[in-house]
């Protein structure tokens, strides 16, 4: 039987999940994002769970410490509770530290899904595809030279030479013979393909300011989180453009700021090329997202955009999403052009206007609410 504390623990987890859901809007609109920890876990700061008590205001309070230094020198390190190896006898748990809670990707996605009542995504093609993959996880005694495992072979040879007494420590020469050879060998595994690719495109021309980019960043974080919880494998590609487009890594995507004109078609062309070369739409669920403030260089280019969308992007995608981030300089024309063509309940096109940080969640709901 589990210890009763597991029930307290489950209760605690439930309470914090509720708190996070209650505060989700605040978290999102303040751009406060859970910190990914790299193992599928996220760290969420939770200041609200503390029991309120009468206590001293601490900043002015200061304290007493131990060590070298002159008045005026900074005091380093050690918040309460840190680095004390010999925790004493049982007692109180005062502590002023902020609570940080670890949540898994699934738990976090669940909270988002709950709050926005998002439907689960039905992957394209109804049934998931099966495929066999070879994984090189074991070691065999036969195989091609290209798969020879050098270290294991060396070890075998060493073992043999020691046991036969031919190993000389003063002249440590190891010569493997045929029977020492070891090879990586594969085992075949059936895997279910259930993969998605998200292609983010963003206008980084002068009119897209820091606030606009911050919105895109926050929004894409939560979109990724949701899609990751829905698909087994997910790839994310980033395209930035002004008058021309290029593929970049995530970091560059959010940091770049260019001046100059805007040709949205350049991004769409690149997006099309990426899909054509890397993602067979029979095997991949494809999600192109484009964010801009709605300005395009010319109506000519917008026409070109619509052509590419119609012929090359929409037919291959689960959904094409356009998010228009309001800015002081943007005319918002592109949204008008798109919405004239793709009516509100278009199967594979979702358009969303994002006025400010407060409307990020609603926009996510626009994009993901269709369950496609």
């Amino acid at each position: 039987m589990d210890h009763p504390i597991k029930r307290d623990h489950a209760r605690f987890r439930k309470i914090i999940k509720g708190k996070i859901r209650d505060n989700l809007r605040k978290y999102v609109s303040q751009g406060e994002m859970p910190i990914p920890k790299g193992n599928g876990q996220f760290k969420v700061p939770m200041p609200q769970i503390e029991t309120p008590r009468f206590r001293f205001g601490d900043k002015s309070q200061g304290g007493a410490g131990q060590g070298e230094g002159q008045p005026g020198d900074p005091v380093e390190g050690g918040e309460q509770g840190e680095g004390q190896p010999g925790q004493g006898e049982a007692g109180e748990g005062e502590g002023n530290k902020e609570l940080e809670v670890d949540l898994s990707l699934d738990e976090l996605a669940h909270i988002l899904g709950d709050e926005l009542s998002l439907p689960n995504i039905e992957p394209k093609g109804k049934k998931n595809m099966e495929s066999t993959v070879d994984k090189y996880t074991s070691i065999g005694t036969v195989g091609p030279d290209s798969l020879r495992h050098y270290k294991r072979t060396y070890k075998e040879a060493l073992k043999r030479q020691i046991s036969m007494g031919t190993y000389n420590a003063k002249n440590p020469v190891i010569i493997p013979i045929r029977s020492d050879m070891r090879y990586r060998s594969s085992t075949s595994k059936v895997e279910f393909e259930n993969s998605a690719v998200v292609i983010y495109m963003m206008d980084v021309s002068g009119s897209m300011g820091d606030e606009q980019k911050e919105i895109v960043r926050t929004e894409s974080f939560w979109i990724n989180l949701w899609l990751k919880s829905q698909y087994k494998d997910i790839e994310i590609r980033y395209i930035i453009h002004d008058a021309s487009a290029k593929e970049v890594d995530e970091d560059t995507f959010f940091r770049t700021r260019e001046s100059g004109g805007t040709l949205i078609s350049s991004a769409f062309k690149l997006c099309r090329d990426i899909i054509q070369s890397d993602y067979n739409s029979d095997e991949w669920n494809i999600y192109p997202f484009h964010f801009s403030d709605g300005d395009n260089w010319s109506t000519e280019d917008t026409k070109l955009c619509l052509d590419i969308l119609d012929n090359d992007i929409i037919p291959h995608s689960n959904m094409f999403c356009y998010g228009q981030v309001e800015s002081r300089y943007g005319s918002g024309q592109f949204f008008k052009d798109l919405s004239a063509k793709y009516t509100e309940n278009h199967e594979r096109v979702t358009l969303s206007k994002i006025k400010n940080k407060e409307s990020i969640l609603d926009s996510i709901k626009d994009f993901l609410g269709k369950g496609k």
Partner: protein
Amino acid sequence: MERTKAIRGELLELKNEIEGHALDYGLSFYPVVFEVCNYDTVCILAAQGGFPSRYPHWRFGMDYDQLSKGNTYGFQKIYELVINTDPCYAYLLSSNRYVDQKLVMAHVYGHADFFKNNSWFKNTDKKMMDVMANHGTKIRRYMEKYGHDKVEAFIDTVLSLENLLDINVLFQGPGAQKSQVLDDDFEPIDKRSQALRSFMNSKLDKRNTKETAKVDEDDSTLKSIDEKVRGTRDIMKFLMDCAPIKEWQADIIGILREEAYYFLPQRMTKIMNEGWASYWHSKILTQKALRDSEVIDFAEVHSGVMAMSQKQINPYKIGIELFRDIEYRWDTGKFGKDYLECTDMHAKENWNKETNLGREKIFEVRKSHNDITFIDEFFTEEFCQRQKLFTYKYNPRTGRNEIDSRDFQEIKSKLLSQLTNFGTPLIEVESANFQNRGELMLKHVHQGVDLDINYAADTMRNIYKIWKRPVNIHTIVEEASVAYSFNGKEFQQIKL
């Protein structure tokens, strides 16, 4: 599933050896039961204050969460856990090395001696294991009867009061800290004001309450209640007795209050208790129990425990050094009128009257002091310098904490103010009938440090849930006398 195991074989022999050394040195303690367990179990026990059974509440789960994580990430590690009961229970971590167990055992005997002999622990319930388990049963029963969420929410509220205690209660005899055992089904029926009614209940024999004659709710009665509770710092008891709450709610306040008082002496003697335990583990190991091959490992663990921090005083370090300093001073006669009044620096430096009273003195100190009196009486200028102590302060200009002073008096008063009222603000009842409207007026006895007003507001919100009338507090902010009020809707400053 068995979570802890009795010690056997090598560890049992070790226990007998260490216990023998402890007794030889004159330590005196209730029997110590050592149990071995894995780290997960240590985390569970630590989260529950050392006790195997507590009432159900999410915060134990929260502490468990943080403790287990602390271990996974290597931030902190719990080495030992002792609880103040008779017999005294102590848990050994199965993954500890033999030399660690040795150190831990010796350390535990130090704590066990302290628990038994320090006068602040005189009235703690040595059968707390059973009491805690009973509290768990009771609260589970309330949860079945009134709903889990409702009871839990009430506990959440009461936890806001947990530090509103009066240390003098510790000396009022064993009964004073106890929760009252109440009859679940008891519901008084009369038409007096709720607050008054509850107050009267506590003063009257419960069985006769139903027949109690009506008492006029006139000014003089309210005044007399007000007078009786004025100045009380045992606010948990005050609310338990006087607030218009259900009996089960009063019982829960009582339960939480009893547990809070049980842990209070440990909060008041952290430096002494850890210092004393560290003093003895060090003494027993270096003089008796340590083998040559273990010296390095011992030194490593010991110095880890003694590590200094710029941000915080390490109670282990300051504690052990103070005990050693006292022992040295009383061995050499560096105390008393003659020594203190001696102006010859050279003579003072080489002072040795060979009084050899050190050992006797530290035993006496561990008996009668708490952290405040300990620091107040034995913290000397020389000691302060030797320990490289300083005070620090937040500098708003640079946005960081900076060393403020190395002046002895300042450091001492900083230490003392941090320890006063176990580090929490001193709050008392100023009036239970403020403005003659049954409002509660609390008073923050200001001792140099302002309250955190945001926390105060949230705390008053919770007290309001219990008192059900406006809750006010009288305090000092930036050297000006101010009062705040929470009237059930908003928190605001009021004029007095």
